[in-house]
């Protein structure tokens, strides 16, 4: 099976090259046989990549340590689940995993469009095949997971302990599903540019794919935050590390696209902008991969440095040049149909929102690259860490949150003063009330105060929109409000799913603002010692050390401390934090010791304990961090994902018809909000 997998990889490369060649040729020559051959070659590529993947999984599960990848990332005593997930634990395996997802996506895209978008499909399959060729060439020639060692080690090195975590088992696949998902919209954009068929057809084909990529990107980012929080032990979930930033970039641009696509659908505007966003999301995904694999920027998450970084850089440059050429030569075809009636309109609000989203993406990209730029200009190495990113991005994030509340309140085309007054009254009142209340309660951190205030604005907007929608259904159909709510969402998933995403954004921002009340304590304890500290809420916590224990479990030697915890004199439970030294099957240490954080969590705050060091037989140095509202980050992330699912869920034909009411009811006074049942 391993040999079959290895051979399949090369066959897949040739298949993909064939697919690219005949698809473009077929499109140009308008020959159905070539087009068909190209599409079948994509399916064949999928089959070959699946075989190659099965080959690698077989090698991993049979512990074939003659293969470099297996020896580098697994060991005989590695738990089976992590032996399976080691597939994407290293450089070459993760590249193969990328190719596997891309070939699956490509096959699905071709299959679902076998009777639609036929003018575009030769170029779509050609573009996807070219991307596959790039990945397969990189795998076969630059980072081959089937490379063999010139000796057979007794045991493998094992998987990095920090990757032996459920979060790490599912976080990378989600991120890859998100990254690779941007390839399909990109391929459609290239096809539309090449054929000059830049009407709404290609956009309709890519919306669901862009949503899918956004959904997986969101889930991947949130799971990555959770993994960093529970596994790395530094006390937070986002460190503005270059690799974290790289995952955020396509997400931001994709989010901008999912908003601006509505303007093109409703008003035929922003055609150039939408093409640019689709292309940029893909390029930023490739850029993220380049960052992770090139070693050009220091990151704790990077794979080992390897020559494939240069390959990615070359591919990135080529893709930028080709797409820039295509866009610049088709500007006339990308001219908008409609014009703007008012600066105070939903479409204008979407533009402002896009400006801020892309502005944040730029600032993240700029901060990530600034060390390189600074070194090139001044010859001086600098560090651009969280203080820089927080300084720059907190104001932009607050502006985005404000626009999240304002946008849905403004009517399409033109908002009248009466409309604005009616729509804004409750949300602005809520924002002011929360702002004053929180200030009175002692929240004097400006960013936190604005965050809660703007969050209240968005929340009130969402509640108002749901209330009006439910009320309209109640009046029209006589439904009870309990029945009307799910039906309202079901009838217009796109609009109300979007509001659920906005709700998730508010919850996440509220949790971020909670960081203003974070407290950290550095304590030294011997067995039987007690230390008392006070959190930001004024509660007094005591930590009584029960001493250090040492024992062996599975593939690791564990050093643990147990702490009896009280809050305001009442028992709160026991927290245990560990240091783990992983060993191979012969008992030899494999990696540096890793942290197992002790967390006592609630929706108010987490008590986060890290065993930082051991002194003598029973002395311990621990860090206690009170992290407010962390659970709300996971809740907000889940809400965003849920909203994304609601938006993606296919609608029945009848529901699609109803979503068009807004357009049909157009002879209305200008500025009048079309409420409740209509499409966003």
């Amino acid at each position, binding site marked *: 099976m391993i040999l079959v997998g290895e051979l399949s990889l090369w066959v897949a490369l040739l298949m993909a090259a064939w697919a690219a060649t005949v698809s473009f040729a077929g499109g140009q020559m*308008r020959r159905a046989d070539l087009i068909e051959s190209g599409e079948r070659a994509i399916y064949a590529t999928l089959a070959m990549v699946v075989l190659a993947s099965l080959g690698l999984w077989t090698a991993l599960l049979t512990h074939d340590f003659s293969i470099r990848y297996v*020896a580098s990332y697994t060991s005989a005593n590695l738990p089976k689940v992590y032996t399976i997930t080691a597939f994407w634990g290293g450089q070459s395996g993760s590249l193969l995993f990328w190719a596997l997802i891309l070939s699956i996506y490509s096959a699905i895209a071709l299959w679902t469009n076998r009777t639609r978008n036929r003018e575009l499909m030769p170029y779509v399959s050609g573009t996807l095949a070219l991307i596959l060729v790039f990945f397969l060439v990189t795998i076969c020639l630059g980072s081959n997971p089937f490379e063999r*060692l010139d000796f057979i080690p007794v045991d493998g090195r094992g998987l990095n302990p920090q990757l032996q975590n459920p979060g790490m088992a599912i976080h990378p696949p989600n991120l890859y599903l998100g990254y690779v998902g941007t390839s399909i919209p990109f391929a459609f954009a290239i096809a539309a540019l090449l054929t000059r068929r830049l009407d709404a057809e290609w956009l309709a084909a890519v919306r669901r794919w862009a949503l899918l990529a956004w959904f997986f990107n969101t889930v991947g980012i949130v799971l990555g935050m959770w993994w960093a929080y529970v596994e790395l032990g530094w006390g937070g979930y986002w460190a503005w590390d270059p690799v974290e930033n790289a995952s955020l970039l396509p997400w931001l641009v994709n989010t901008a696209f999912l908003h601006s696509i509505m303007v093109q659908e409703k008003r035929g505007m922003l055609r150039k902008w939408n093409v640019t966003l689709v292309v940029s999301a893909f390029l930023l995904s490739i850029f993220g991969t380049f960052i992770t694999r090139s070693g050009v920027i220091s990151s704790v998450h990077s794979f*080992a440095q390897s020559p494939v970084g240069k390959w990615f850089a070359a591919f990135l440059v080529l893709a930028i040049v080709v797409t820039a050429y295509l866009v610049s030569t088709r500007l006339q075809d990308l001219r908008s149909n409609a014009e703007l009636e008012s600066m105070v309109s939903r479409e204008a609000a979407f533009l402002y929102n896009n400006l801020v989203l892309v502005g944040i993406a730029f600032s993240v990209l700029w901060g990530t690259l600034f060390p390189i730029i600074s070194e090139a200009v001044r010859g001086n190495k*600098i560090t651009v*860490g969280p203080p820089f990113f927080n300084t720059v991005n907190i104001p932009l994030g607050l502006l985005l949150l404000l626009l999240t509340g304002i946008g849905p309140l403004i009517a399409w085309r033109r908002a009248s003063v009466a409309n604005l007054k009616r729509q804004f009254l409750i949300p602005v009142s809520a924002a002011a009330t929360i702002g004053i209340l929180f200030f009175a309660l002692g929240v004097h951190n400006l960013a936190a105060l604005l965050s809660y205030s703007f969050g209240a604005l968005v929340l009130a907007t969402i509640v108002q929109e749901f209330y009006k929608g439910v009320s309209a259904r109640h009046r029209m159909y006589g439904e009870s409000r309990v029945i009307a709510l799910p039906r309202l969402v079901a009838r217009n998933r796109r609009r109300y799913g979007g509001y659920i995403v906005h709700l998730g954004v508010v919850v996440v921002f509220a949790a971020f603002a909670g960081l203003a009340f974070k407290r950290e304590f550095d304590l030294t304890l011997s067995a039987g010692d007690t230390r008392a500290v006070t959190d930001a809420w004024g509660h007094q916590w005591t930590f009584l050390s029960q001493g250090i224990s040492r024992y062996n479990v599975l593939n690791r030697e564990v050093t643990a401390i147990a702490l009896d915890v009280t809050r305001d004199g009442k028992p709160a439970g026991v927290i245990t934090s560990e240091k783990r030294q992983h060993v191979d099957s012969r008992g030899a240490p494999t990696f540096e010791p890793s942290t197992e954080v002790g967390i006592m969590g609630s929706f108010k705050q987490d008590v986060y304990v890290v065993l930082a*060091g051991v002194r003598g037989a029973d002395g311990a140095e621990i860090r206690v961090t009170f992290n407010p509202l962390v659970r709300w980050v996971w809740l907000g992330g889940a809400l965003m994902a849920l909203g994304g699912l609601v938006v993606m869920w296919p609608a029945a034909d009848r529901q699609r018809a109803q979503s068009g*009411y807004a357009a049909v009811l*157009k002879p209305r006074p200008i500025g009048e909000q079309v409420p409740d049942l209509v499409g966003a």
Partner: protein
Amino acid sequence: MAVAKDSMSRRQFVLAIPALGLVAAAFPRRINAAQVAVQTFNGPMADANDVYRPVTLPAKPGAATSMTAAQRDDLEHQIHCQCGCNLDVYTCRTTDFSCSVSPAMHADVMGLVAGGHTAQEILAAFKAVYGEKVLMAPVRSGFNLVGYTMPFIALGTGAVIVAALLKRWKSRAPIAPAIEPHHVDATEGELAALDAAVRRDR
């Protein structure tokens, strides 16, 4: 799309492609033990002997400790551990069991605090020894100001462009409604009911 339909020898293709694959794969490259991949996820990447350099200043006359423990911890949050972990000194020394660099840098901070030096003086001393990379964020002067201001300049420029575009689009906006009608199959009765509901809502 009008397309021509020609026949192709698919059998030849199906046979030829795997054959080429077999040829390409027939020469698996072998590598030696030194090239076994190194996993760089987290953990200290450098030893104190390699990267640590002492940061000392003479104690001020009659020196007393210049800051509280909390202020010192805040200061250590601004100093970049040089072990390669990308964390600040405080976080690294209270997280990483095996890092020998952050405890050494912490000891230097303790010594400077005991010597009566202010936070700014301590940061300057670290910068003099390690260079600017030892600070968690670039100092706000010189070329670094470009770093801090560029996102806002870009956003401002974008805002100006958007404003100009909006103005241009607005000036040539047609009066006629421009919404492209969706294909709607709703009945007249449904539309009338919805319109009535909307009117009541005003």
